[in-house]
């Protein structure tokens, strides 16, 4: 029982990442009608925003290490610590969550640039060409990151206050289950971002227009609403959501340049399982597949069906597409072809 709870918890943070990427994919697909294969690259760029930001904060000065007396030893102390003492050190420790501040404007700008510079020329072209051009863009983006940050994964640390483990068992009234706190933070973070996006779509006039545009783009345009500009903003939002998912994921998985590609394939499967164009479907399928994947990696289950953890997501996708071709919550008329 404990093992199952532990695996479900494991699935929650992974599912959170899937759900956030799939949410952005669905937003872009629903509004702009574009299949964006570069969305995983946006997740990766977000992760590297965190890397860049924490490097910026930890620009250091080499000082003599007084504690070593046998030979000349040096240690690196970030300027922030030198200047502001403990406050500075706290800022350095909290680099990953603080990167959100940097990541939001950067990712929104990247999103705008992508939409204005490339994607908008592909609205009228076939899905195959959209897939191909964004696939090319994804390769270019990941190679640029590789050029600047190298090919090796760059480990990041969670803030010390959140780096330890929490006793989940006590909360659930079960036996002692300790679980890394940052993963729980990530799950809560993804939930709140999802909540924000939904609130934005449901409660603001802008969101209403976007929802109307997803349902019937042409009519909304005929009503005199500049749908093009609205959709550019939607692309920026989707890009920021993917980026934030990447920023917060860095302490869980050390980012490397092909992180995006790994997540992209899975996120597409998530979107398809959830139902193309359905936002709740994307979120539901994200968490569902995340949890299923962790459950399948339990040794007891692997003993029955070897290798199931490697293929469970794809297997589920195949079964869902064959039994419910529109996905779990897909609507009639969306990508019926």
């Amino acid at each position, binding site marked *: 029982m404990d093992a199952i709870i532990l695996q479900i918890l494991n699935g929650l943070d992974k599912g959170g990442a899937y759900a956030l990427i799939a949410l952005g994919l669905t937003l872009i697909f629903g509004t702009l009608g574009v299949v964006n294969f570069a969305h995983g690259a946006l997740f990766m760029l977000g992760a590297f925003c965190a890397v860049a930001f924490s490097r910026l904060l930890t620009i250091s000065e080499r000082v003599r290490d007084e504690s070593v007396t046998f030979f000349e030893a040096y240690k690196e102390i970030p300027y922030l610590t030198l200047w502001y003492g403990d406050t500075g050190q706290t800022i350095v420790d909290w680099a990953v969550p603080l990167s959100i501040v940097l990541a939001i404007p950067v990712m929104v700008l990247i999103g705008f640039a992508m939409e204005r510079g490339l994607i908008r020329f592909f609205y*009228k072209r076939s899905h*195959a*060409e959209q897939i191909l051009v964004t696939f090319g863009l994804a*390769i270019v983006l990941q*190679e*640029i990151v590789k050029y600047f940050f190298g090919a090796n994964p760059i480990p990041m640390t969670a803030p010390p206050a959140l780096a330890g483990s929490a006793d989940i068992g006590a909360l659930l009234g079960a036996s002692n289950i300790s679980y890394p706190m940052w993963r729980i933070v990530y799950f809560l973070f993804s939930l709140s971002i999802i909540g924000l996006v939904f609130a934005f779509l449901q409660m603001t006039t802008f969101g209403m227009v976007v929802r109307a545009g997803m349902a019937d783009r042409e009519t909304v345009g005929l009503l005199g609403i500049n749908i093009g500009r609205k959709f550019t903003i939607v692309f920026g939002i989707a890009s920021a959501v993917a980026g934030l998912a990447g920023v917060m994921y860095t302490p869980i998985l050390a980012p490397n340049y092909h992180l995006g590609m790994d997540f992209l394939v899975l996120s597409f499967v998530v979107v*398809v399982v959830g139902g193309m164009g359905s936002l709740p479907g994307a979120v539901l399928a994200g968490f569902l597949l995340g949890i299923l994947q962790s459950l399948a990696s339990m040794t007891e289950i692997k003993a029955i069906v070897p*290798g199931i953890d490697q293929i469970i997501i794809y297997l589920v996708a195949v079964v869902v*597409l064959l039994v419910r071709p529109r996905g779990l919550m897909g609507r009639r008329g969306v990508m019926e072809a």
Partner: protein
Amino acid sequence: MSQSVMTPDKNMSKGMGRSPAESQAPKGEGLRGFMSSSRSDYLMLAIFALAVLTMPIWLAPIGAGYPDILQKFAIFGIFALGFNILFGFSGYLSFGHAAFLGTGSYAAVWMFKLLSMNAVIALVFAIVVAGVFALFIGYVSLRRSGIYFSILTLAFAQMSYNLAYSVLTPITNGETGLQVAGSDPRVLDRMFGGTDGRGVPDFFGMELQGWPGFYFCAILLILAFFVTMRIRNSTFGLMLFAIKSNQNRMNYTGFATRPYLLAAFVISGMYAGLAGGLLAVTDPLAGADRMQWTASGEVVLMTILGGVGTLLGPVIGAAVMKYLEQIFSSFNEGVLNRAFDFMPAGLQDFMVTIISPFVGDGWHLTLGLMFMLVVIFLPGGIMEGVRRVSGRFRRDRGDSSTRSSAGH
């Protein structure tokens, strides 16, 4: 701008309402330009064969006159030809074709290990295994179309890739890759006393390394080209083109399109299996990385680069891409410095700094940029570029063959 990619020929729509019996008459008015007369086809085949066989001579000046790279041209030419039968003819974009390439390689190496180093047995087995595998995947994937189809094939390919790395390790030898060894049973070879334990694939005694290896691949490429040509000119090929231009209308007229698509999928899977088998013949080693989805993306790019739906395009695209890969990834700063030696020192440093991210390890950056540029500006690929240029010369004569590029 995409007109010529998705709807290959304006003449097609006229020929659509015909019954199969009618459309079998090859020189129908509506089919002109699509089904060219067989004489010009055989001329093209002859020229193609000549060009392929003399590649060592005319490619030598650009530094590609050695067997290793020419083998790659031929093998990936076959792979792209097969992919084009599915994507180019029927418009179904598979993102998982590398799975069949990998399966073919594994099957061939297993034949080398178990039966004989004879390449023919290995290739036949590779084609059969890849075909059966494609039949299974195609049967499931083809129940959906459009982007769902792409993602289903991608899912299957990733599944095979993951399985090859984990559970199927007894068959695939995991990360090390499957290799031939001196201790392999090789039943047939032992029976006829032919084995010398060197582990070099042969064609009835002729070792397929270096130049013989290239000519073996080249002949198979010509054969594959011939088969593709026949497929394109057959009723079956016509059906695929019709599905591409309007599948709904095909269904409404009462054709069951799925069997045709499945056949195309299996055929193109068999081509991929042959290519994978040949990869194993020229270098008896099979690894799971051949199944990765980047490999699937590569064959898509080759086909697009050359020209989707054209006969010659995929082969040209494959050769161009493998050639660029070869030269770009072999460049380093030393080579660049020598190349720009004639410039003043400051300018030389500047050029080297600018270009070095794009070569060597950065070859993928160039690949991605090329991918984007081709899709953005030349969705019809090299063949369309050629047609546009030649169309400019022929415009005053009003030649009908330039009509398909007139939509731009």
